[in-house]
């Protein structure tokens, strides 16, 4: 056996990174010109294994730098610095409809990155790699604190950045799948925002009483956040994805309690019965249930439920009354919500009302519904159990992997800048002597 084989050196820097940080994967000491496969392996919390790999050729110095050299095959191709993460897919033989989501964000996502001889596409479990390293990907930066929130009947988790503060605040809402989804709030806290992830569909109080939360639930969350001694009460924003957008827009426009400094709405719509509670909005969607379509693979397509965009003003949040900057993030191949059509209508309504200077729309061709933090693997479809229907369905989210992954990276970067500008920026004080 060639002695040189044993000398291949693989390194990933940083070996412990935040989920939105890039890393550099470097292979050194390989035989010049040799064909190698670099593979990432991850076992998620529910026990499923995911893999991603690229095919490379070592240069004349025996080096491969994933951020500079092209992959010529595998789960991604071309020069893709982070391809080993965003192109993750379940290993062959896994059941269908899986989606990678971390529940426990106090531990890192552990990824093993290895290099193999030749251009391999399968049977990795039976091969011995030339080299392998362990990489940690964290949602929480050191010093970020997680505080469960239960007062006022809330089911929520507050993530505080390290330091004395005060910090601008953020209310973080996910969509129809319910549960307390914490990872985005944890990551935003790592960027300096006191972020509260809220469960509003499967909250403890709903599970115990069988009743959906009312609009005061969100106002309570806002107050709790605002009153926290380490939160800057006058700088609070809200971010919602999917159904979370419906809540965000409703609160931003109609709530007398909630005064937002900014709002971010991802893959959602302003279409809803204007005076409706959460329950009433859900019933409104259900009423249009017969508009559900199915793909040829029998995946559920729900985007038509809210189409056509109504002209009746009682069925759309009156975004013309919005007083804070709004960032809309749209995947043009969203098969779950009519986010593109809604964005166009929102734009028109705001133009007519004269407040379109508040609106920024980021629209991504071939991106789907689930626009997640960067390098999250793309799920074109996955099994879903919503609060409205009892059994699991295979839901079509949409999107093509490469474009969707680029959209996630770009949207996140712009979203963080948007939040920083609106929550941290603006007034530059001349001194801090009063702090």
């Amino acid at each position, binding site marked *: 056996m060639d002695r040189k084989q044993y000398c291949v050196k693989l390194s990933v820097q940083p070996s412990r990174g935040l989920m939105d940080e890039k890393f550099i994967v470097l292979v050194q000491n390989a035989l010049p010109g040799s064909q190698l496969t670099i593979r990432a392996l991850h076992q998620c919390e529910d026990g499923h294994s995911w893999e991603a790999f690229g095919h490379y050729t070592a240069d004349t110095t025996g080096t491969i730098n994933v951020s500079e050299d092209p992959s010529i095959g595998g789960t991604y191709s071309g020069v893709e610095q982070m391809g080993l993460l965003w192109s993750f897919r379940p290993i062959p033989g896994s059941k269908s409809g899986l989606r990678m989501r971390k529940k426990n964000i106090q531990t890192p996502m552990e990824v093993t990155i290895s290099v193999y001889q030749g251009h391999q596409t399968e049977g990795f479990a039976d091969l*011995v790699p030339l080299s392998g390293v362990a990489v940690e990907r964290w949602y929480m930066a050191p010093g970020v604190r997680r505080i469960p929130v239960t007062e006022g009947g809330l089911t929520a988790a*507050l993530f505080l950045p390290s330091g004395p503060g005060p910090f601008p605040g953020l209310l973080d809402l996910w969509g129809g799948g319910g549960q307390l989804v914490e990872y985005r709030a944890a990551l935003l806290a790592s960027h300096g925002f006191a972020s509260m992830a809220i469960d509003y569909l499967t909250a403890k109080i709903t599970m115990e009483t069988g009743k959906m939360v009312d609009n005061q639930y969100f106002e309570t969350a806002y107050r709790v956040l605002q009153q926290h001694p380490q939160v800057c009460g006058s700088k609070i924003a809200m971010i919602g994805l999917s159904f979370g957008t419906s809540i965000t827009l409703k609160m931003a426009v109609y709530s007398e309690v909630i005064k937002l400094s900014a709002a971010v709405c991802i893959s959602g719509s302003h279409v809803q019965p204007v005076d409706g509670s959460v329950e009433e909005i859900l019933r409104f969607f259900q009423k249009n249930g017969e508009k559900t379509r199915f793909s040829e693979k029998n995946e559920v397509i729900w985007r038509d439920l809210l189409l056509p965009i109504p002209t009746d003003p009682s069925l759309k949040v009156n975004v013309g009354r919005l007083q804070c900057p709004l960032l809309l993030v749209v995947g043009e191949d969203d098969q779950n919500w009519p986010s593109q059509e809604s964005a166009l209508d929102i734009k028109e309504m705001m133009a007519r009302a004269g407040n379109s200077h508040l609106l920024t729309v980021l629209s991504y061709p071939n991106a789907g519904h689930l626009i997640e933090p960067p390098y999250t693997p793309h799920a074109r479809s996955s099994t879903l159990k919503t609060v409205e229907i009892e059994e699991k369905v295979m839901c079509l989210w949409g999107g093509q992997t490469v474009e969707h992954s680029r959209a996630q990276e770009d949207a996140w970067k712009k979203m963080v800048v948007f939040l920083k500008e609106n929550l941290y920026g603006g007034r530059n004080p001349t001194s801090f002597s009063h702090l």
Partner: protein
Amino acid sequence: MSGVVIYYSKSLCTKNQECGILFVRDLKSPALIPTQGKPILQGRPNWHLCRLFSAMTQVVPPILSVTPSRALVDEKFKVLVENLPPGYPVTVRSLHNSEDKHDWEAYGHYVSDHSGVVSVSEDLSYGGTYTGKEPMGLLWSMRPVPGSRPGLRLRKMNVCTPMLVTISVHSGHEGFRDQAPLASVLTERWYMAPGIQRITINEQGVQGTLFIPPGPGPFPGLLDMWGGGGGLLEYRAALLASHGYVSLALDYLGFDQESENLELKYFETAFNIIKDHPQVMSDRVGIFGLSLGSLVAVTLAAYSTIIKPCCIVCISSNHYYPAQGSTVASRFEGVTRQLYKARVNEDNQVIWKGVGLEFITDPSNIAEVGRINCPTLLVNGCDDQNWPTVETAEDVARLMREAGKEHLLSRLAYPDTGHLIEPPFSPHFRATTFVIHSSKEKVLLLWGGKTKPHSDAQEDSWRKILSFLQFHLYCGPCLKAKI
């Protein structure tokens, strides 16, 4: 401006209305304890701590970031402060509470640019514990906080946890300590990369800790030894494992009575434990030693008939090897007995260099380094006050040249650098309290070096050491003369 927190009845405050009472924070307290809206005064369940709308609460603090927030100890970071007023003077400070409960700090004085940004990697520090453009100054210029007892040294004993450093930004330059920081973040500095296995070794009489990198291997190996202070220091071995070497941190002085009788055999056994490990390439095992450890490295390379190191690294070189005595300790006894002669300076610091110099001038006291047959790297500080390491290196070069082995030798000598050449960004210790192994006497030993050049030497030498190891243990043909 310090203040007091004022509580008031919840019923006075209706939603969204200004309550008219000013909320003021007590600036002397370093951290706020969140009440999470719970009642905080006993017996008054309706009283809550509430914040108010006022001009003060609308101002947000600067944004401080350290990237990466988790890193190996030899990796650089970028410290950035944003959202300051333009042209604003600030102090960026690091604070670390060591395992033995001492506080260490470093700080630099900066002024923000027109966009309110201070970048520690790009901007110049005007003063503090370091000046100029120093991206890592917040680590290498650390020293015990004012009021600490003298002679302290910072060394991590538990390598399974990171070194936690708080980086904070304060208003102003002079008197920056008088106010609470504007912002602070926590950063982790690790000796161990993820996936490294740490295994306690206690076999064949050998005691130490073995670190194995993740992956299938096989890997090159390293025997890692510290100096005359004794004990088991794991951090450098852990860091070397993070760079792909199976590394054994060896305990060879002072773990029990038997250690007094340590012969070459002990070290040969330890070397073979590495060599015979299933994940180690048996012909790619090197030796890494500092101070007394470098003496062991040199004597093993010169005299052992049992083991053949692939290469050796000697920091703060030592080749004192009198004919009398069979163990490390007994051979050194001659020197130890003369240490009373060591000069003591006006700061009561003991300088051993002179004593050592006397001994090594006698050629019968020197190891026959001409017998070394492997690539050798000597790293020394020209201001070493503990041992005549530069003179030693000159001597080694002469002897190896006479034996026709000069091509095997590389030497690095750094000006204004002392004896304790540690991994990069470790603080510099010019003199520290030292317990003499044989007599248990405590002295304040002068190691030498000036902080900035010593820190530069640590950074430069580490890079060169890693490159030397990579060349000889990962790529180059073994036991052949090529540097």
